[in-house]
């Protein structure tokens, strides 16, 4: 029993970590939905949801209950297997990047002595990341690009012309903007010299700028704009343009299947916010925090995590703000903007970064 527990201990730690990260991310996502409705309400001079709980705080859970109890309709001539598969693919691909998020700095002074049988002996470092993957940036980009299947298959399998048009538009849009997104990341990767997300944060700490948004301001804006397009948010929400396509790819989805798509969209928003924060805003790093707490201690890690979440929330607020402010693009405008403006700008940024890095390293 004891030896089994000892072997299993690292796995238990990772499992607890996954549970904590999943719970935290889902809570943030749930309250993003509420915040979106509240902020949109304020922007439009309304109050927003305020019935469930004080200030409408229980609204996300009420929504979830409603989704569960609604009737689950399946279109008669839909392709059943694919129709069920699509929302699962969408949500899975949205949640997978969570594995590499650097939630905070590693705690080096961790003390497991309260555990029985000397379980934690030999483990002094607790990284606040689920998995240290050497190619974190590529992993996130790859998994999010697989997420397109969820939308495309949903559009195809519903056997409805609105869904099909929505699915086609979204796949075209996502393929187009992925290029600009990837090209805008290259500048950061070149400055950092690594694809590991934690490594990128440490590279920012070492650099004289502290945050890569200063040398990579062009890359930042290209990334931000293509992130809006990748997550199908206003002003790029063509796949679900209500006036033209009813509800786009999820026209035929109801109840829990629709809830999965809905959650996937907000988790994707969270993902690109995390990427924006880590690549351009120093991740969990807060300049000057090392003078207050000792790096590696628990208070330092907690303060860093709070800073990380605060930066993410700022981006989520930006999303909502833009949604309340900007009108929608036309589809040809969207394509022209992506291919003829964003991609050349991103490539120019790569070229500029290459030249600067080359002359700085001489």
């Amino acid at each position, binding site marked *: 029993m004891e030896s089994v527990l000892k072997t299993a201990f690292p796995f238990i730690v990772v499992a607890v970590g996954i549970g904590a990260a999943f719970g935290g991310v889902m809570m943030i996502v749930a309250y993003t939905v509420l915040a979106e409705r509240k902020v949109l309400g304020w922007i439009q001079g309304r109050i927003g949801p305020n019935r469930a709980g004080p200030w409408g705080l229980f609204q996300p859970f009420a929504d979830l209950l409603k989704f569960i109890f609604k009737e689950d309709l399946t279109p008669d001539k839909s392709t059943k297997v*694919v129709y069920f*598969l699509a929302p699962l693919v969408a949500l899975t691909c949205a949640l997978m990047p969570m594995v590499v998020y650097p939630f905070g700095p590693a705690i080096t002074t961790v003390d497991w002595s309260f555990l029985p049988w000397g379980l934690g002996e030999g483990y002094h470092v607790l990284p606040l990341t689920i998995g240290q*993957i*050497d*190619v974190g940036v*590529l*992993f996130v*980009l*790859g*998994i999010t*690009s*697989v997420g*397109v*299947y969820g939308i*495309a*298959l949903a*559009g*195809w399998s519903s056997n409805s012309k609105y869904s*099909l048009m929505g*699915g*086609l538009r979204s*796949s*075209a849009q*996502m*393929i187009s903007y*992925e290029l600009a997104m990837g090209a805008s990341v290259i500048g950061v990767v070149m400055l950092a010299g*690594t*694809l590991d997300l934690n490594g990128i944060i440490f590279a920012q700490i070492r650099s004289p700028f502290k945050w890569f948004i200063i040398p990579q301001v062009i890359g930042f804006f290209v990334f931000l704009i293509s992130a809006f397009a990748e997550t199908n948010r206003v002003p790029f929400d063509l796949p679900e343009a209500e006036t033209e396509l009813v509800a786009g790819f999820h026209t035929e989805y109801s109840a829990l299947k629709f809830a999965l798509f809905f959650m996937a969209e907000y988790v994707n928003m969270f993902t690109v916010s995390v990427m924006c924060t880590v690549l351009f805003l120093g991740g969990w790093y807060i300049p000057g925090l090392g003078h207050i707490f000792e790096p590696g201690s628990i208070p330092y890690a907690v303060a860093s995590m709070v800073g990380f979440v605060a930066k993410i929330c700022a981006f989520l607020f930006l999303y909502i703000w833009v949604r309340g402010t900007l009108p929608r693009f036309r589809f040809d405008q969207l394509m022209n903007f992506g291919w003829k403006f964003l991609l050349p700008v991103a490539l120019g940024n790569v070229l500029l970064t290459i030249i600067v890095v080359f002359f700085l390293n001489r």
Partner: protein
Amino acid sequence: MATTVLFFIFAGIAIACAVSTVYQRNPLYSAISLVGVFLSLSGIYVTLAAPFIAAVQVLIYAGAIMVLVVFVIMLLNFDDEPGRNRLKYLYVMGIGLGVLLLGQTFYIYSAVMRVPNVAIEQTKTAGKTLSIGQGMYTEYLLPVEIVGIMLLMAIIGAVILVRRLNQPQLELVVENELEDERLEEGMLN
């Protein structure tokens, strides 16, 4: 041990998905099965200490090429594959080819099994992004340049293949060709 278990799981998924790719009549089902093959191969690459290749496999094959294929299938929206090939001898050829290749595979398997092949100790750098980048831009610079030019050619080829000329553009092309002919005639005279 864990590697072996993972290998057999991923290998099973890969073979099942590959068979399904060939078996399915509906091209979209074929495409989904093929994505399954790519993802499980990516898992095998991770166990082979090649995380960069694994990530690129997901990014390029599953995320770019197959999305394009699915997009084309949805766009063209053609019917399921009807009946059988008109060329019957292709079936005989296919089965013969399959038997031949399987025999070859078995021969290679037994031949390699006889030689003791122990995986060398994993070095710190092999398979990491840094070593791949260094190899690409020092020893294999020329192939990389050639691949770049080939990609450029593919872009131009694809654009020219699928462009649809409207009437004034068509007239312009015809006019240009006539002009060329006239010039040639002038040069001949």
